[in-house]
């Protein structure tokens, strides 16, 4: 059993000189499932992208560490090999590269040279995971994400999660665009990974996903900050009552108003 801590302190992130995150603080440890909720455009996906090192996002202030190591100093691939994983909202399409070739390369990237995964082991595990996620076996031989439906792309992200066994997984709106059956399958995959060894940050707009994956902690993001944290009951109240009460409770004004005043 390993214990990993992802610690985010006072994180400020800009995209094209527009500040999106304005001081996020958050700690995710092995075994913990955190949900980040909030209205659209409050910086939830920016947080996910900044942790992984998306080229369009610039961290202007603050720190991200993984077991004390400076994540911001790492290249994207180093972050992955250090144990981070991001299931992306919009995965890239890579023509000419089959899903299974890519998966094998990714698995071997984490292993020492000379200790590559034996082909038979890889195929067995892949077949098992494909079946578990109710994915057509042909997907393994199709080009990575090319011509995949929205649902197939999401399942492929979870397939990679199952194959790569990260320490900390970030799921960026993994539920968006999924019908209820697909949502159940995706949730099943995530729950299968749930253990003392996995810390998880689930970014979602809807409470719906949290009916299938119960978080230990729920955080509300608004205007680039985490403004409220609580347990699973917080998600239920947000679903029932929306976000207005949080704004009123904390005295948050809508951004448009703020900008007009400025």
């Amino acid at each position, binding site marked *: 059993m390993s214990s990993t801590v992802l610690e985010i302190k006072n994180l400020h992130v800009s995209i094209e000189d527009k500040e999106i995150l304005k001081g996020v603080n958050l700690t995710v440890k092995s075994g913990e499932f955190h949900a980040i909720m909030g209205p659209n455009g409050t910086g939830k996906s920016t947080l996910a992208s900044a942790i992984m090192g998306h080229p369009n996002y610039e961290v202007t202030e603050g720190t991200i560490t993984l077991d004390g190591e400076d994540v911001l100093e790492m290249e994207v*691939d180093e972050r992955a090999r250090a144990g981070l994983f991001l299931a992306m909202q919009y995965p890239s399409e890579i023509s*000419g590269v089959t899903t299974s070739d890519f998966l094998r390369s990714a698995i071997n990237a984490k292993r020492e040279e000379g200790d590559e995964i034996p082909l038979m082991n890889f195929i067995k595990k892949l077949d098992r995971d494909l079946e578990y996620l109710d994915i057509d076996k042909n997907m393994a031989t199709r080009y990575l994400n090319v011509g995949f439906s929205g649902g197939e792309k999401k399942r492929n992200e979870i397939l990679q999660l199952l194959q790569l066994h990260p320490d900390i997984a970030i799921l960026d709106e993994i539920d968006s665009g999924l019908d209820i059956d697909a949502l159940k399958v995706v949730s099943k995959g995530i729950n299968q990974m749930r253990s003392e060894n996995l810390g998880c940050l689930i970014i979602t707009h809807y409470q719906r996903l949290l009916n299938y994956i119960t978080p230990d902690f729920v955080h509300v993001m608004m205007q680039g900050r985490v403004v409220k944290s609580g347990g699973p009951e917080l998600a239920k109240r947000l679903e029932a009552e929306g976000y207005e009460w949080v704004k009123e409770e904390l005295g948050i004004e809508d951004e448009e108003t703020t900008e007009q005043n400025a």
Partner: protein
Amino acid sequence: MYVETKLPFNQEYIQAISKDRNEPGWMATLRSKALEMANSLDMPKPDKTKITNWNFTDFQHSNKEAVKITSIDELPEELRAYFDGDASMENLYIQRNQTAAYNSLSQELQDKGVIFTDIFTAMNEHSDLVEKYYMNDAVAVDQNRLTALHGALMNGGIFVYVPRNVQIKEPLQAVFWQEDTDSALLNHVLVVAEEGSSVTYVENYISHNDTEETVANLVTEVFAHDNAQVAYGAVDNFAEGTTTYVNRRGVAKHDARIDWALGQMNDGNTVSENITYLMGENAASDAKAVSVGRGKQTQNFTSSIRQFGKATDGYILQRGVMKGSASTIFNAIGKIEHGATKANSEQESRVLMLSEKSRGDANPILLIDEDDVTAGHAASVGRVDPLQMYYLMSRGLEREEAERLVIHGFLAPVVAQLPIESVRKQLTQVIERKVY
């Protein structure tokens, strides 16, 4: 300014070669006339590439015999990779310099009347047949100075003949190994597929002259008669010292099909023309080519499909990767002639740039003289998509490995078309070597 460049070869020399090879009279005449034309014709003018300073005409010309090959073990490792591990060495031709060093064709195909032999033997044994096609309707001697020079000094090649209704399932493979580092190769490939026949032919050009300068002047002529199908694969891999002019042309009759998959991996300066004439109704062609440019090399690739027949279908796909300070022009030209109603013409040229100093131009061109047709084209020149890199690296792949996947993926649509597994693998390795 006019600079007179006198060719270093005269009529006596030409006639001596012809006599040496015991060539038929028509070939001796063709060589002689070609040499005259070579002294007066203009050089080819590839669009957007200046080749006036390239040396295409001053070279060592050799006609001497090289040692024959009896077993695959006698070949250098680099060449052996082109064959399957359990290769029977059947349906294979290996040319060592200007010598047919190895030639085999299965008994079954021989019995069916298939010819697969070096061009000189073919001229002796099937003189009328070769004369009918040799430098007439596909590549004319008087096309330009280099085709004329080729006509005069041709010193190697192969003749592939598939009789009526003979379908050849297994691919025929030719390896042109320019072992001498300082002599020029003027190679001629002639493929004739009679009515209703089909054949897959794959060739490899290899040389090792990294520093010695020489010339390759290559001509391919492919004829697909009514209902015939020709799949033509190639991996060109001349070393840095070779300046190459390669002219591959095909003529497709009614319901005939000629598909090209060309891996153009030369390290020296190269001008390549690949032109297919769709003469008959319903004739079709896929012309696919990949290239990797590196170092300081300059290359010009023109793929053209000219459609004369009704309801013909032409598709050109070019993919190139540029690094170092390499410069490459890709011209993809679809031409629909007057009267070719219901024809369809498509071109796609894409170039991936890996360095600041490299240069790549993708020029899809459509020329249409008919109303009732469909056509489309696409072109792009760009860098590796940073979001693709981010995605791949976010799974732990190092930058170089991620880039390698993107590049192979980018070239895959052409590489996958090569008809022999071992040649496909070899091309993949050559790409790997050129890119890294």
